């Protein structure tokens, strides 16, 4: 493995516009293998868009996204001209990357077990027996194997999110992207999801997490990135960033957050 030399994710001057609304104005970011990076920032600052550019759910229109050193979404010829790659190739280049969504996005017509097995059968082409074993293993990892026959609609939000995490884990990702995984949950259900994510972090999973859970961010992350107006306004170790914010933007963001949520950490 070349994990020491190659970054898990490298963003170089990443830009993205929707119409004439430039949402990302040049993002540079390095994520090493095994690192946990939390992205914070106000609503509309471009956090989701940045994350979605990494796994090419949004097509970026400037700069580069590199995963394990490989350019995602485009092919660059000898002259440096870019051409779009077919979806199948992009998906192939992104097999190590899985995303967990705010709205869980489980498939409601499949049981919990079927949700986790489906990509193993259709994408990984495992046999039914192998897929079932694998699915049960990842479900027990998130503490959901007892609900294998339930439908998503019968589960609480926290349980659905844990199943969604298991569905991703089944694909053996090396990098996981989380877009506000606990924002749609009732407060009492947030903990069970964060616990699962924390254990993933401890096992060395590379994670990029968009979150408003500052306590969690301070606890698990190696690096916190503060996004404002489509730019990285400030980034660094959580201790430094939360205790000694340098920019006015981060200062005001943190103080607004504390007013709403009580003491900081």
């Amino acid at each position: 493995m070349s994990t020491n030399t190659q970054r898990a994710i490298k963003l170089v001057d990443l830009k993205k516009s929707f119409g004439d609304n430039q949402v990302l104005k040049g993002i540079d970011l390095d994520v090493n293998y095994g690192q946990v990076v939390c992205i914070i920032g106000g609503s509309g600052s471009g956090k989701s868009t940045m994350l979605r550019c990494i796994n090419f759910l949004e097509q970026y229109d400037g700069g580069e996204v590199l995963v394990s050193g490989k350019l995602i979404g485009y092919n660059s010829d000898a002259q440096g001209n870019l051409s779009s790659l077919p979806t199948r190739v992009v998906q192939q280049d992104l097999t190590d990357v899985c995303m967990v969504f705010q709205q869980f996005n489980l498939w409601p017509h499949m049981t919990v077990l079927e949700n986790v097995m489906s990509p193993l059968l259709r994408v990984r082409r495992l046999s039914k027996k192998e897929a079932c074993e694998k699915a049960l293993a990842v479900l027990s990892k998130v503490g959901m194997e007892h609900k294998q026959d339930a439908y998503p609609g019968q589960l609480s939000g926290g349980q659905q999110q844990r199943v969604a995490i298991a569905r991703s884990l089944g694909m053996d990702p090396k990098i996981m992207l989380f877009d506000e995984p606990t924002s749609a949950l009732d407060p009492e259900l947030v903990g069970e999801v964060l616990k699962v994510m924390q254990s993933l972090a401890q096992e060395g999973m590379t994670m990029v997490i968009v979150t408003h859970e500052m306590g969690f961010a301070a606890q698990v992350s190696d690096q916190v990135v503060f996004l404002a107006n489509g730019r990285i306004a400030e980034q660094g170790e959580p201790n430094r960033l939360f205790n000694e914010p340098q920019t006015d933007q981060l200062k005001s963001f943190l103080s607004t957050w504390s007013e709403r949520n009580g003491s900081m950490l």
Partner: protein
Amino acid sequence: MDLSLYVSYWPILLKGLGFTLYVCSIALLIGLIGGLLLYGLNRLGWRVTSFIYAVYLTVFRGTPLLVQVYLVYYGGPFVGLDMTAEQVGIIGLGLYVAAYFAEIYRSGFASIPPGQLEAAYDLGFSRWQVLIRIQLPQMLGLIIPPGVNQTIIMIKESAILSIITVPELTTAAISMATQSFTVIEPYLFLAVVYWLLTFAVSKTGRWCENKATGYLIRT
């Protein structure tokens, strides 16, 4: 009421019924596939294709089937369009119902949250797999009821084809009426048979709908 009439006319009536079933089946097939193609055309999102889609829907939903069939059958030869009554009938009915099916598909596809599809693509599903595994199974429960409705309307509308002499059920009943100088027997028979047909379609549809929405009932 002279029941013995049916004894002498049953071959004609049966043949008519057979032809109605044949016409409606082919038209339904054209409608199902044509509607999907139309939906796809609209989904391309190009200005040209969206315009074609809009015009198609306006024409086929905004004018009576009777007028469409008349125009093509009697007006067609003037512009070099020479089709038999059966061809005009089947294709006309099919294209007509395709316009309605296109809109039914559209509402079905629109009902599935895009996040579900993104999750599937993210996990490596192909477009085709997303359609077959994620979209269609969930859409069925939603599109079956309006689809059945439209099919029932189509079966009843197919009686219009008697006007351009397509040898279907209504044509058979009319010829029975004129030959035997009766009214009640042929038209009562017609009413009962159309009702039976639509009843069967509606029952079948209900059964399919229950199958397709099983997962919703359990939740």
